[in-house]
């Protein structure tokens, strides 16, 4: 999309994110004609949604609808788009906590939105040990508890149910596993852009604060120690952004892992350096900084935290015995 369209979309998405928090984010985006927007430019629109959500600390679930949308095609399930996404308890996509037990689906996980009364989808470890996807119908009684957790605003839920075969459908693992990996890649680059937006925002806010806060008769932002902290964090954020955009453009699963690792690390570093710049006031409940910090920690966990991902990346290149280059000239 061109710059003008992108600016318009940014501002509309901003309004949606500021809007009524009681309604589902996906419903509010629906008012905007999100399906058409996505059909027009999936990568561009998704990037804008996650970047704005990061910068504004927008509540609600953007990741679930993205994952179910990406799964709909390969699973040939048009109704999947409105399903609730249930992630493994570890929040890592490769370690499902839902298993098949005595012909029933023993579902345990963390739902990105409330599954009650609607259908849901979750990765499953089947009885052969393969990863597949389980589609769960609406007529299920859920144990469903809202999670306060690190970031209560995200509205996560801890869910559990033992679902009889009649209400659950397991996809063919040979289709489901690659579909899940591709969807995870989409989720990872989107989250990386959200984390990057948080990183940029906290650095910018800290720059603003240190430019006016005075000690020893001068703005503390004139001190090199603080300048270097924020500059260093900013550079990491820019680097992560580049890789996030590459992963979005190419859809490469490998690039998406690297993007998510870099973004998680960069956003955490940005928060650490910003917090130090704020001094004591940054530790108050009243200051909004802790909300960025909480959001960063939680988003970092979703689909794999940066430390885990860095280890996985390292193990993968060691297995291949080469360091493949991401991105063509």
């Amino acid at each position: 999309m061109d710059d003008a369209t992108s600016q318009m979309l940014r501002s509309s998405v901003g309004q949606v994110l500021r809007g009524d928090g009681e309604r589902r984010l996906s419903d509010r985006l629906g008012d905007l004609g999100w399906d058409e927007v996505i059909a027009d430019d999936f990568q561009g629109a998704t990037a804008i949604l996650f970047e704005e959500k990061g910068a504004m600390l927008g509540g609600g679930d953007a990741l679930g609808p993205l994952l179910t949308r990406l799964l709909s095609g390969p699973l040939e399930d048009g109704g999947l788009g409105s399903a609730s996404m249930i992630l493994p308890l570890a929040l890592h996509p490769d370690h499902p906590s839902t298993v098949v037990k005595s012909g029933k689906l023993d579902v345990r996980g963390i739902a990105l939105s409330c599954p009650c009364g609607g259908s849901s989808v979750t990765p499953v470890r089947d009885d052969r040990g393969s990863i597949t996807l389980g589609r769960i119908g609406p007529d299920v009684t859920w144990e469903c508890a809202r999670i306060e957790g690190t970031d209560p605003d995200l509205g996560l839920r801890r869910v559990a149910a033992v679902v009889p075969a009649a209400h659950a459908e397991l996809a063919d693992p040979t289709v489901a596993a690659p579909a899940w990996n591709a969807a995870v890649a989409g989720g990872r680059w989107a989250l990386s852009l959200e984390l990057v937006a948080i990183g940029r925002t906290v650095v910018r806010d800290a720059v603003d604060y240190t430019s006016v806060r005075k000690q020893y008769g001068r703005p503390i932002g004139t001190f090199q120690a603080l300048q270097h902290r924020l500059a260093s964090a900013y550079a990491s954020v820019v680097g992560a952004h580049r890789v996030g955009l590459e992963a979005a453009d190419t859809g490469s699963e490998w690039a998406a892992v690297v993007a998510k690792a870099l973004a998680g690390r960069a956003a955490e570093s940005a928060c650490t350096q910003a917090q130090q710049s704020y001094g004591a006031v940054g530790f108050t409940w009243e200051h909004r900084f802790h909300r960025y910090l909480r959001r960063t920690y939680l988003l970092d966990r979703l689909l794999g935290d940066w430390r885990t991902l860095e280890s996985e990346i390292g193990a993968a290149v060691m297995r291949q015995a080469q360091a493949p280059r991401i991105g063509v000239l």
Partner: protein
Amino acid sequence: MPESRLDSYESPAAYAAAFARFLADDRRVARFRHYRPPDLEQGAAHLRALQQVLFDEGWSRLGWPERCGGLGGDPKFRAAMFETLWDFDIVIPEPYSTLEILAPVMLVYAPHLAERFFSALLRGDESWAQAFSEPDAGSDLAALRTRMEPDGDGWRLTGQKVWSSYGHLAQRSVLLARSGGPGHRGLTMVLVDLDQEGVEVRPIRAEDGENHFSEIFLDGAYLPGDRVVGELGGGWGVAMYMLQWERGAYGWLQQGRFHNRLSYALQQSDGDTTVYAATVGHAYAASTALRLQTRDTVRRLANEEVLGPEVSVDKLLLIDAETAAWDSIRQLLGSGFEVEDDLAWLRAEFLFSRAAPIYGGSQEIQRTLVAQRVLGMPREP
């Protein structure tokens, strides 16, 4: 390569594919593959022959303007050439990186000198060195004192330069001197011949045992009047223009090295995945961030955009990647890294990597630039 084939390369990728076929087939190239220089001087001499082949066949001339001896075309062809050389495990001749930094400046600020000398540089018939730093002017470059005084139609240079990379192998030097009063307004960029009376170049042995840089002593060295680069007194602006190439295009070159050397270490390693994975993963991710950031910079430079202070971000990412990549390479090779004598070449590269936060503008200078000029933090009172 006949010049008429030039327009058959529509993209850097098409060029890279054709260049790869050349490297695979041409017998003259074989001796440069997997070449490990025994020392810096022999390496430079050996690779000069590669420069000749690549120039005579036209490969290295693509992406440089025709008016200075290039064959024209997208400057990204140059970036593609470096990438393809690494694919064949061919080390990039040092003069190519010097050219990436110096040539764009000459093309803009001294086209007459670019036209006169460029071909010889690109072919390896001569080499140039940058001479900015002085014993009392490192990070504080504007404090430099090398004097430039009028003498007939030309000038005389007197002073001392230091940390001039590959200075002892160079015939000429792009040098920053003081033609006027104090501060950055009194500086002028010049191109001075090193093989003349009144110039003494002494190599400095670096911690890896190699003569990476030199001191240059100038005692009334002659500078012809047409050797001023840019305006008299405009040296600071020329230096700043140069830095965007030094911080951007150079980073692209280096990420190729990190990927290559990391792959080498991964092939050699029998290290425990569980122990080294995190270190290796971090190094790989950092190198990728550098690669994609500098790819964008290379693209913008190819579009003739003038980059601002944002390019210091490239250098900061280069420092992170260079440090992390070499730390992980050393880890992967275990005790062999310290005790295997046939790894001397790799140890030398490792030891030189410790200069990453220092060369080309220190990490502290880059952070200050990003803080003040990109983020807009207030300057010190």
